[in-house]
C-alpha cells in the first residue's frame, strides 16, 4: 500500500500580513480588499464590483501600506509581511476629498437616489458627513440620453467607474459600452458614441444593474411577472437583509419577479416532481421538507404458477436491489440529496427548514423538477423568486458567504457522510473542514478541471450536474454525470496529482471545493479512507484499461459510435429467425403491469437487431437533471434507479432511446392535506429493463417462440463475431451471461 507521503499535491502558498494590526493568512494572489473582508473589515469602494475584474479607478478603496503612495486595495495583491492600515485619519481624509470631487459634479439627488434611494456616491458621501462639496461644479453640462426604451442614461451622474463597461463586456460579452474621450472630457459611450437606442445594445440591463449611481436607470416599461402574491416595494425588499446590497434599480425593474408569500401551518409550498422555475427564501417560520412517495423499486413478482403466468409489479425495498459485486455499504447512502440546504436521512426522509434558508435553487437555476415536498410547519413568510433575482443575489459575495456558511453548517456533514468512504470521518474533523471549504460557481460548459492538469482540489457537487469524461483514442468516454450529493477529484489527489478525467459543468453548477491541503490532512488522519479511495482508484483504472483494450481489439466503428460496446448487456433479436410476432413485447408488457419496457426496433448489425432496452450508455443523458440523484452509476458503468425515485419523469424524457418508462402503481400515502391520514394514490416511478432479475429468465426471451431473442454480453458476443469473421454463432450461453 503506498504511503500518503508519496502523494504529490499542488497547492497555492499562503501569505501572512496584518490588516489594521490584525494578522491574517490568505492564499497568495488575494487582493488586500478580499483579505480585509475575510476579517470583516469593510473598505469603501465605488468601482469595485465583486463579479467583475477589479480596475482600481475610483481610488476610494485606497489603504496605507507604508509606501510612498497609497495602494488601491481592490486590485493590489497582498504581500508577505504587509502592514495594511485601512482607516487612518489620513486615508479617511483622502477618501473624503475624493467623494467631494465626485459629489461636486453629481446631480444630487440623482435618478437612482430619487427612485430607490441607493446611489452609492450619495450614500458614501452621507456616511462621511459631507453636506456640500467644497469644489466648484462642472462648468459644462454632459447631458442625457433618452433614446433607449428600457434604460435611461444621465451622463451627469456618471462617475466613470467602468462597472457598466465591464458588465457589458466581461459579464455579458456584448461590448457595446466603452469609454470615450480623454481626461475630464472622458465619458461612457455606446458603440461609436451613438445614442443608446440606436446602438447595438440589446437592453440586457447588465449596465443598469452594475451602475452605482443614477447614470443608468430603469425606465419602468418592462416588468417580469410572477403570479399573484403580496407585491413588494423596493424599500421593503431592501430592508430585508438578503436584498440590502442588491441594486435598487434592478429590484424596481424586477419587482414582480419576487413575491412575498404567506403559508399557514400544513400548507404545501411545493411538491416533489412538480416543474417550476422559482426558488424560495424563508423570511420567517419553519417548514418540513420530505419525500412523500414510498421508498422502493418497482419489481415483478409471479402471482400464480401454471401455464399462464401472471406477473405483478410491486414495490420492494432497496435490499432486494443489491447486486452481487457491491459491498454492503456501496449503495446504502444514508442521505438523499435534495434541492435545499439540508439532505434527507434515508431512514426517515424528512428535515426541517428555517428562516434564512434558500431552497429550490436547482429548479430555479436549471429548471429541474422539485426534488422534495415542502410543507409549512408554522406560519411562514417566504420570498419566491425567479432566476434573474436569484442570479443577482448570488453575484453578491456577502449573500454568497451566507449561503456558504449555511451550507457548511447544515449540509457539509450529511454530504460527506452520504459518501460511504467518508463515513468514518469524526465530527471534530468535519468541524475542522467547515471553515476551510469554499463554494464555487460554474456556468454551463465551463471546465472545472481538465484531464492531465495538476490537481489541487476535491469537489462536492451542491447544485447542477458535472460531466466527467476521459479522453481516449476514438473520442471522449463519459464516465458519468455527477449531481447534487456527488463528488469528484479524489483520484487525482491520491495518485500522481494529475487529473485523470475532465469535469465540465453541464448547467449552472455550484461545487464545494476542498483544497488539497485539507484533503491530504484527512487522508493522513483517517488512513482507512485513503485505503478505500486507493482501492476504488485501482478498480477504476483497471476497468478503464480493460475498456480501452476492448476498443483496440474490436474495430467495429459503428458499434463504437453507438456505444454498444459500452453496454453491459444487450437484448438482440436474430432477424433470420424472428417472425415479427411481437410476443416478446407482449410478454414484457404482461410482466410489467401492461407497460412494455421493450420496443422491437433499433440498431441493426449483420443479421441482428439490437432492441431498444437500456444500454447503460457511454453518455448517460438520463442522469442529467435527476432532482434527487436517484438515477446514477454506482461503482460500475451500469445505470441503476435508486428506490427514492420521486417519479418526476425527467430521466424518461432525457433518454434518447426511449429506454426508460414511467411505471404507474397504486399506493397508500400520507394525505398531505390531512396529516396523519393515509389515502390511495397513483404514483409513478421510473423503470428500465432490469432483465427480470427476479425471474429465471427475461420474460421476452422466455416468451419468444422462435428462439430469436437473446440477452448477450456484447463484449464477448461481438468479439466472437469479429474473430470468426462475422460467422453466425450459436448463442447458447445462458441469457444471464450479460447481466453479470
Amino acid at each position, binding site marked *: 500500500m503506498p504511503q500518503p507521503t508519496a502523494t504529490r499535491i499542488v497547492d497555492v502558498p499562503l501569505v501572512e500580513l496584518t490588516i489594521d494590526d490584525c494578522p491574517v493568512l490568505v492564499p497568495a494572489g488575494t487582493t488586500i480588499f478580499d483579505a480585509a473582508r475575510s476579517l470583516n473589515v469593510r473598505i469603501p469602494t465605488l468601482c469595485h464590483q465583486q463579479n467583475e475584474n477589479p480596475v482600481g479607478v475610483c481610488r*476610494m478603496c485606497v489603504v496605507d501600506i507604508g509606501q510612498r503612495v497609497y495602494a488601491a486595495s481592490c486590485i493590489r495583491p497582498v504581500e508577505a509581511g504587509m502592514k495594511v492600515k485601512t482607516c487612518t485619519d489620513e486615508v479617511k481624509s483622502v477618501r473624503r476629498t*475624493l467623494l467631494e*470631487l465626485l459629489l461636486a459634479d453629481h446631480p444630487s439627488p440623482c435618478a437612482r437616489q430619487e427612485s430607490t434611494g441607493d446611489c452609492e456616491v450619495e450614500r458614501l458621501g452621507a456616511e462621511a458627513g459631507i453636506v456640500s462639496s467644497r469644489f466648484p461644479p462642472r462648468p459644462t453640462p454632459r447631458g442625457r440620453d433618452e433614446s433607449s426604451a428600457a434604460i435611461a442614461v444621465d451622463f451627469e451622474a456618471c462617475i466613470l467607474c467602468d462597472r457598466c463597461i465591464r458588465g457589458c463586456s466581461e459579464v455579458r460579452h456584448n461590448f457595446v459600452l466603452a469609454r470615450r474621450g*480623454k481626461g475630464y472630457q472622458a465619458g461612457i*459611450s455606446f458603440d461609436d458614441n451613438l445614442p443608446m437606442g440606436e446602438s447595438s445594445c440589446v437592453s440586457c440591463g447588465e449596465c443598469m444593474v452594475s451602475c452605482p449611481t443614477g447614470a443608468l436607470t430603469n425606465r419602468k416599461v418592462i416588468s417580469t411577472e410572477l403570479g399573484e402574491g403580496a407585491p413588494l416595494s423596493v424599500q421593503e425588499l431592501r430592508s430585508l437583509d438578503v436584498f440590502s446590497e442588491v441594486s435598487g434599480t434592478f429590484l424596481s425593474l424586477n419587482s414582480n419577479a419576487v413575491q412575498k408569500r404567506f403559508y399557514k401551518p400544513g400548507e404545501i409550498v411545493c411538491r416533489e416532481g412538480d416543474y417550476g422555475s422559482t426558488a424560495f427564501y424563508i423570511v420567517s417560520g419553519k417548514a418540513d421538507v420530505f419525500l412523500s412517495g414510498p421508498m422502493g423499486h418497482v419489481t415483478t413478482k409471479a402471482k400464480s404458477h401454471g401455464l399462464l403466468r401472471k406477473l405483478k409489479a410491486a414495490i420492494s425495498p432497496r435490499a432486494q436491489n443489491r447486486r452481487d459485486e457491491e459491498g454492503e455499504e456501496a449503495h446504502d447512502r444514508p442521505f438523499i440529496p435534495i434541492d435545499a440546504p439540508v439532505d434527507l436521512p434515508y431512514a426517515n426522509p424528512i428535515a426541517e427548514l428555517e428562516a434564512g434558508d434558500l431552497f429550490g435553487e436547482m429548479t430555479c437555476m436549471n429548471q429541474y423538477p422539485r426534488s422534495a415536498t415542502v410543507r409549512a410547519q408554522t406560519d411562514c413568510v417566504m420570498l419566491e423568486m425567479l432566476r434573474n433575482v436569484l442570479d443577482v443575489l448570488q453575484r453578491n459575495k456577502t449573500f454568497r458567504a451566507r449561503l456558504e456558511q449555511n451550507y457548511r453548517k447544515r449540509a457539509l456533514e450529511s454530504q460527506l457522510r452520504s459518501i460511504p468512504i467518508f463515513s468514518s470521518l469524526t465530527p471534530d474533523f468535519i468541524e475542522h473542514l467547515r471553515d476551510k471549504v469554499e463554494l464555487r460557481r460554474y456556468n454551463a460548459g465551463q471546465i472545472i478541471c481538465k484531464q492531465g492538469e495538476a490537481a489541487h482540489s476535491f469537489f462536492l457537487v451542491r447544485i447542477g450536474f458535472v460531466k466527467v469524461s476521459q479522453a481516449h483514442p476514438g473520442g471522449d468516454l463519459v464516465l458519468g454525470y455527477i449531481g447534487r450529493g456527488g463528488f469528484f477529484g479524489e483520484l487525482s489527489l491520491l495518485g500522481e496529482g494529475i487529473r485523470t478525467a475532465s469535469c465540465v459543468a453541464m448547467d449552472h453548477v455550484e461545487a464545494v471545493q476542498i483544497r488539497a491541503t485539507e484533503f491530504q490532512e484527512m487522508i493522513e488522519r483517517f488512513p482507512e479512507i485513503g485505503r478505500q479511495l486507493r482501492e476504488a482508484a485501482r478498480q477504476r483504472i483497471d476497468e478503464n484499461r480493460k475498456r480501452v483494450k476492448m476498443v483496440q481489439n474490436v474495430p467495429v466503428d459503428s458499434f463504437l459510435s453507438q456505444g454498444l460496446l459500452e453496454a453491459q448487456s444487450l437484448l438482440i433479436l436474430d432477424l433470420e429467425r424472428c417472425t415479427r410476432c411481437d410476443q416478446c413485447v407482449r410478454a414484457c408488457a404482461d410482466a410489467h403491469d401492461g407497460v412494455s419496457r421493450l420496443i422491437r426496433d433499433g440498431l441493426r448489425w449483420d443479421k441482428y437487431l439490437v432492441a431498444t432496452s437500456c444500454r447503460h450508455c457511454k453518455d448517460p443523458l438520463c442522469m442529467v437533471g435527476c432532482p434527487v440523484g436517484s438515477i446514477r452509476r454506482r461503482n460500475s458503468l451500469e445505470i441503476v434507479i435508486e428506490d427514492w425515485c420521486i417519479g418526476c419523469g425527467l430521466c424518461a424524457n432525457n433518454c434518447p432511446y426511449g429506454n426508460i418508462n414511467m411505471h404507474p402503481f397504486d399506493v397508500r400515502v400520507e394525505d398531505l392535506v390531512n396529516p396523519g391520514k393515509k389515502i390511495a394514490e397513483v404514483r409513478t416511478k421510473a423503470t428500465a429493463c432490469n432483465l427480470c432479475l427476479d425471474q429465471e429468465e427475461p420474460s421476452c426471451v422466455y416468451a419468444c417462440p422462435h428462439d430469436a431473442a437473446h440477452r448477450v454480453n456484447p463484449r464477448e458476443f461481438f468479439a466472437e463475431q469479429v474473430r470468426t469473421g462475422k460467422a453466425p454463432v450459436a448463442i447458447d450461453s445462458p441469457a444471464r451471461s450479460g447481466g453479470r
Partner: protein
Amino acid sequence: MFDELRAIQREFGFLPAEELHRLSLKLKLPVSQIHAVASFYPTFNLAAPAKLDVRVCSDMTCHLRGADELRCAIERAFQGAPENEISVRTASCLGRCDTAPAVFVNDTIYSGLRAEQVTEMLRGASAGRPLPPVPRDHSKPVLATDPYAGRSDYRGVRRLLETKDFLGTIATLKASGLRGLGGAGFPTGTKWEIVRNAPGSTKYIVCNADESEPGTVKDRFIMEHIPHLVIEGMILAGLVTGARKGILYIRHEYEEPKEILQEEINRCYRIGALGSSIFGHSSGFDLSIFTSPGGYVCGEESALLEAIEGKRSEPRNKPPFPGNQGLWGMPTAINNVETFTVATAILVHGLEWYKAQGLNGLPGLKFVAVSGDVERPGIFEVPMGISYDDLIYKHAGGIRAGGKLLGFAPSGPSSGYLPAEMTKLPLDFNAVAAAGSMVGSGAIVVCAEGRCMLDMALNSVRFFRNESCGKCVPCRLGSQKLVTLLTQWTKGKAAPGDRQTIEDLFQAMRMSSICGLGQIIHAPIASVLKHFPSQVEAHTQRQQCPAGVCFQA
C-alpha cells in the same frame, strides 16, 4: 490599429463612422473599442476638420515666448472666416521649446516664427499656396558622450558578443550608479537584471522617446545627433536581458529624429548590428520604430505599453511592473532615450571615464535643455554637478533682454518652480531632491522678473489637466477643480477656506492617483505657494497682479 486609423485619416481627413465600422469587421474588434481608442488621442479627428487646422502650443516655454499673442494674432487675422476654412486651437507641448513658440498647421510644426510670419504663411495657405517646408538643422556638434565621433562601428555590441559577459555588464552599470534619466530614476543595472532574471523566453526592450513634458527636448537632440548610441544601448539591453525584439516608441511630432533613427537602423541591418545573427553570432535582435498616437501620458511607461498594444493609453495599476509583466504581459525593459545613450557611453568608454566626467565627485554628463526667458535657449551636454547659475548664465547666455531672474523650473512643470537664489544648487539628483524639487529630465525653464508665478503655476496645472488620461478619479476631477480654483485666484476671487481645500486636494491627488502624472499635478502650485507666497497673496487678498499679467479681462 493606429496604422489603420492613420490610413483612414490620410484618405478622408478624419475618421468617418462607416470606416470605423468597416475597420471593426476587419480587425474583429467591437466598434466601441475602436471608438474608445480613436477618441482618446487628439491626433484623430472624429469629424471633418477645417481646411486649415491650426494648433498653437500654449505650454510653459511657448507661454513665456509669446504663444498667447501668436494665437490672438492668428484669430484676429482670420476674424469672420467660415468655420470650415480655419480652426485655431491650443495644443499641448510640441517639443520645440528651444525655438518657441511652436504652431502646428495641418500636420506640420513650425517654430521660431514671429506672429506676422505665421499669419502671412496661413493667408497664403488659405489662398491655395502650399505650406513651406520646415528648415532643418544640419549642425554636427562634437559630443563627449559619443565615443565614435559620429559614425559607430558598434564596438560595444561586438565586445559583449565576444566576451558574453552579461553579468559583468550589469555589474558595470550598477557600479556606475546610472539611474533612469526620464524622470523616475530607477537604477538601470537593476532594471536590466530584473528582466534578465524574469522567467520566459519572450522579452522586450522598449525605448521611451515620447518626451512630451514642456521644456523637455533633450531626447530629440540626442536622437538627431547620436542615434547610434540609442540603438546600441537597446541592442546591449537586448543581449543582456535575452530580449530579441526592441521597440523605439517615438512621439509623432518628431518626424526628423524618426527619419534619422530609421536611417541608422537600416544601416545597422546592413552592417549586421541588427538582425537574426548579430555580427555572425548566434544572438539576434530586431528593432522597429513605433510612432506614438500622441499625448503626454503616453510617456508613463505602462501607458506607453498600452498604446503599443493598440489601446487607450491609460497607465496600469502597479505592481506588476513592466520588468515582470510589460508589453503583451512579457518581461520588458523600458528606458528613456538618454538612459540607453549613457549606458552605451559607459560600456564603450569605460566606467572610469564615466566617473571622471562630473564635477565635485559626481559621475557622468547630462543633456539639459534651457528654455524660456534666456538669450540662447538650447540643449547642452554638461557635467553633472554644474550649478544652475552656470547653466542659465554661461550656457544659455543669461536672462533675455538684460532682465533679471525671478525663478526657474529645474524639470518642467513636474519639478515645480524654484526662486532665483536657488540657482546656486548643483545639477545633482540628491541635492535638488533635498531642496524639494528634482533634476528630472533636465528641462530647465527660466522665468524673468515681470512674470506672474501664479499665472505660470496655472499654466502648468492646465497642461496636466489637458493631458490627464481620465482613468482615475483624483487626477481626472482633481486637475480640473484645481484649474478652476486657480483661475478664480488669478481673478482675485478666493474663498477663505481655499488654502485648506487645496491642501486636501494635493494630498488626495498625491497619495491616491494611479500614476506619476496625477501624483505630481500639485507641484507647480505647491512650489509657488511655498517660494512666491507674496505674489499669490497679492492676487487673493488685494486683487492685484504684481506682474500685470492677470486681471486683463
